[in-house]
């Protein structure tokens, strides 16, 4: 199987470029590394393996093409287990996103199940929280810009802007890896969003509530000053997989097959 995968990569690689790492279309390679996440494992560094990531979030027109190919994910046909009533709420019908939403704006009001299925049908998958955070800590010139004032100001400035979900993909900055729009347009689903162990309900937000969470003493923010990231984790911890939300979209990633 390993040889099999390798050969495919070599073949594609040969067809496309003749050398270097195979890079699927509209994806870039994020090189492996180690980072310390906001919610770390006892504040320990996490190793992230190299992966390919979509350069842009999935757009309305791309998602329309998907539901036309896979009708079970159309607005009127999706099962409630997999998407709540807000699913594609801005779309006037099954086969159009209407004239309010831009074709090249990120698709939003998408459930986790829908995002996951979309990626699977492209031969891809959703990124893990670690992969997403790792790629998203870059600014234009640095792989880890989290300590930079400008980096944090950009994100916090975005949190204050309204209706950025309807802006075109590629309208924010191109980061160190060559990826656009990780910050600035929409928040994005991750495969393991439900690994964040903080309750979204304020009444339940008692720190280290050992009744609700087993082993919760081990989960604490390693850098609470990182408010921008804290907001993302709090958001992930508060949503459910069938939720479809106006400012939540997604993009896909893919394994790098021929890691040394």
């Amino acid at each position: 199987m390993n040889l099999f995968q390798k050969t495919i990569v070599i073949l594609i690689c040969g067809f496309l470029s003749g050398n270097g790492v195979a890079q699927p279309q509209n994806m870039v390679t994020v090189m492996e590394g180690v980072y310390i996440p906001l919610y770390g494992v006892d504040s320990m560094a996490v190793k992230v393996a190299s992966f390919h990531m979509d350069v842009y979030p999935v757009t309305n027109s791309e998602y329309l093409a998907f539901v036309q190919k896979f009708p079970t994910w159309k607005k009127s046909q999706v099962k409630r287990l997999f998407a709540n009533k807000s699913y594609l709420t801005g779309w006037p019908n099954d086969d159009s996103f209407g004239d309010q939403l831009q074709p090249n704006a990120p698709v939003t009001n998408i459930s986790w199940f829908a995002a996951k299925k979309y990626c699977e049908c492209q031969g891809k998958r959703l990124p893990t929280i670690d992969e997403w955070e790792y790629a998203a800590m870059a600014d234009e010139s640095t792989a880890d810009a989290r300590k930079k004032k400008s980096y944090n100001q950009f994100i916090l400035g975005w949190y204050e802007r309204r209706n950025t979900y309807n802006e075109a993909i590629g309208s924010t900055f191109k980061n160190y890896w060559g990826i656009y729009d990780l910050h600035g347009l929409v928040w994005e689903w991750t495969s393991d969003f439900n690994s964040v162990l903080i309750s979204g309900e304020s009444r339940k937000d008692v720190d280290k509530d050992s009744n609700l969470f087993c082993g919760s003493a081990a989960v604490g923010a390693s850098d609470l000053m990182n408010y921008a990231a804290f907001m993302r984790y709090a958001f992930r911890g508060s949503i459910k997989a069938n939720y479809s939300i106006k400012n939540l979209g997604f993009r896909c990633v893919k394994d790098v097959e021929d890691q040394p």
Partner: protein
Amino acid sequence: MKYIIRHILFILVIPALFTSCKDKNSEVIAEASVTDTAISELSIYNLPSVWTTQNNEAIELKELNGDVLVMVMIYTSCTAACPRLIADMRAIEAQVPDSKKGNVKYVFISIDPATDTPQRLKAFAIENDMDDEKWIFLRGTEEDTREFAAVLAVNYKKISPMDFSHSNIISVFNQKGELVHQKEGLGVNNKETVEKIVETAR
């Protein structure tokens, strides 16, 4: 020469790989139209995942239809919350009257499939005196486990090679696989949960 043949073979195989999603989906669509009337939109029986029981048998969730299901996610090497969750499940079972017991199954889903092999789940069941057919211990792939947790709104994270953080939620499903009740927390009053089971079970 051998290599060339192999490469030609791969070129032929690649398109097949890329269409597998489509094939799988059209299958699902065909299947759904047949069983649409039986499985409701909110039923967990819509999930196609295949699980392995403590008796090393493959099972799909929809094979459990017809029974009220009381479900919880645990892992067997857990020493903090899980023993209390197991105790809660046992206490709930004890309060269900004999006339209803035949229609209720208690399902434990492992969040640590790497460690919790069927053999280990079996040993765990025996150890906890839960080795008859109303107690079901399930193990799936990492991905299906993550998906099922998403359905139950159970959050979990591996925090060390041996331990997980996880939310403690007991869920009750009716005979059609629709969620009818959830209780969060440990050792909390289970009166409501029992009432719901009794009300739902035949």
